[in-house]
């Protein structure tokens, strides 16, 4: 189905980069500092928490940005603790039983948020993930049918996130929400850029020395990333994903291009484009401004002391089975 790809991913990415620049407020005379070896200096700790939903709320149509007035009103409501339906709270949405959301790190009104007037993280007039191709729908439906009734058989049937193998906010492309543990630290060395995610304390060491991707036979949860600099922007190209870490129904041909730049001193602009000719009829792109934050990034605990999420899910399923068996008699 490659014929259905009207735009090359490179052209598409360039378009997005252009739109971001056009939209960025005219900053003063700030210029990106340089590391000692002359690459743009992106180093620092950034928070990628955002309230902007991935897809544009239905009522907004092709409206890509809020006006200053609309945005100010929205922020005011959020800071007062009223989160309107235009904002996506994700894991930070009120839940009855899981967390005390007033605890530090869970309270979204205390989070560091980068100013973002976008109505959705996905850019462009549609602001939505493009429709899934029929064969991708079939592939995903078959997989779901195979899993149906086995969701609670064992821990191996549970999602990667529950198993502490790959957390949602850690996986790439990075799609943050308003959830906790949203720090990202960047360290640049000669020929490498290191990204440390607070969530799951996982690290990507990305070479920028022009090397090719690893053999297509080697598949990794986070794929294989190689980077290069385009002007002041770090461009990271990732392939070699497994089908276990499928991104929104993607297949093994998932190709991700991420762009990191600093439009001003306090902001890291993160943009990405994904394409997968086996899954979507065209590439799609999103952008997320991240706000400079105070470090350090501490260690992160996944399952330690956390019994309710995993053990209880499986135990609950066993109890239900027993109850079902009894009722059948």
């Amino acid at each position, binding site marked *: 189905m490659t014929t259905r790809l009207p735009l090359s991913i490179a052209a598409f990415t360039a378009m997005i980069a252009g739109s971001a620049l056009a939209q960025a407020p005219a900053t003063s005379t700030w210029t990106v500092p340089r*590391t*000692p*070896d*002359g690459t743009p*200096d992106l*180093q620092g700790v950034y928070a990628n928490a955002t309230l902007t939903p991935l897809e544009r709320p239905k009522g907004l149509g092709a409206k890509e940005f809020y006006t200053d007035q609309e945005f100010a009103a929205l922020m005011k409501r959020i800071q007062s603790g009223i989160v309107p339906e235009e904002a996506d709270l994700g894991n930070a949405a009120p839940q009855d039983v899981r967390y005390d959301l007033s605890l530090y790190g869970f309270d979204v009104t205390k989070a560091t948020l980068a100013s973002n007037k976008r109505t959705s993280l996905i850019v462009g007039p549609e602001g939505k993930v493009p429709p899934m191709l029929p064969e991708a729908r079939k592939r995903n439906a078959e997989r779901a049918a195979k899993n149906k009734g086995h969701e609670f058989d064992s821990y191996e049937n549970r999602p990667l996130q529950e198993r*502490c*193998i790959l957390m949602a906010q850690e996986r790439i492309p990075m799609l943050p929400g308003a959830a906790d543990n949203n720090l990202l*630290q960047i*360290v*640049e*060395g*000669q*020929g*490498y850029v*290191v990204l*440390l995610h607070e969530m799951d*304390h*996982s*690290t990507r*060491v990305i*070479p920028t020395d022009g090397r090719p991707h*690893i053999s297509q036979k*080697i598949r*990794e*949860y*986070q794929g294989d990333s190689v980077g290069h600099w385009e002007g002041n922007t770090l461009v990271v190209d990732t392939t070699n994903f497994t089908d276990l870490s499928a991104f929104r129904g993607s297949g093994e041909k998932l190709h991700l291009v991420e762009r990191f730049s600093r439009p001003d001193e306090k902001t890291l602009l993160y943009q990405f484009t994904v394409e997968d000719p086996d899954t979507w009829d065209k590439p799609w792109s999103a952008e997320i401004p991240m706000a400079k934050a105070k470090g*350090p*990034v*501490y*260690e992160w605990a996944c399952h*330690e002391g956390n019994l309710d999420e995993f053990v209880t899910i499986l135990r609950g399923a066993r109890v239900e089975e027993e109850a079902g068996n009894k009722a059948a008699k």
Partner: protein
Amino acid sequence: MRVTSSATLTAFVIVVAAMPVAGQTAPAAKSAVKKAWTQPRTPDGQPDLQGVWTNNTVTPLERPKDLTGKEFYTDAELAAGMKKEHERLDLNIEEGLPTEPGTAADVHYDFSEYGLDRGQTKLAWNHRTSIIVGPEGRIPPLTPEARKRIEERRAKAKGHEFDGPENRPLGARCLARPNVGPPLLPAAYNSNLQIVQGAGYVVIESEMIHDARVIPTDGRPHIAKNIKQWMGDSVGHWEGNTLVIDTTNFTDLNPFEDAQNVHVVERLTRVDADTILYQFTVEDPGMWTKPWSGELPITKMEGQLYEYACHEANYGLVNTLNGARVAEQEAAKKAGK
């Protein structure tokens, strides 16, 4: 028992730092005269330690008892050891090493598989008979209160080793690998690491458990004492061409179980194009009667680090616990009859 640790750590580190010069005189003088090598620098002038390295070694942490007092092998002894290792590896690749039936080694892994026999990957050979330096070459004795603490914890844990996953070691739970430390110690496999240096930071990524330490070298102090982390809190600084890393804020579970105030000082010095001399000193006056230090060469290797899988498709933990439940049921049946 603080009186027993008479040397301050600072003094001790200086002694250790001075030691390799003396200790190395013999091996270094005997090794082939190398071409003039100058310490490369990063663009901001730091000594350049970047690259992919391995600390894979056959040198044991503690000196074997029959070598008491002997800190270095002679060249002839080292050559014989290397030859023996190569023969062992050839045998393993061709036929597989004989293992004793029924032992964990026998049922656990096929050691002829790539990467599982440490001889298959590059080894950093050196003349030392143990990683721990000094005439004793062993971890010093525990203090009486540490012995008491360990005994009490063991007594409490006894009979509950298989109750649940929380009773199993951290490594079996994929939470932390003691060899990743700090101090960084070699393990039977995946003893590889990558170093990246940025302005104000050094990153050390270990292949084992895919853990990375992002170490600031900007002079900041340690984090608050009440924050404890599996891998502690590391801050670094440069002393000449040596990266010195100071780590505190460990939990009492890792990397040294029951040690409550571990302080680790690591020194990384690039001594030639292919070698970093890695030295460390560990102290905890409530745990050991004196500080102890080790050193081993870390050698440059080709390649990159790949993702690491811990428990995926690995049923060791589940089988351990299942086995315990079956044993309990059988014991109950027997008692009932």
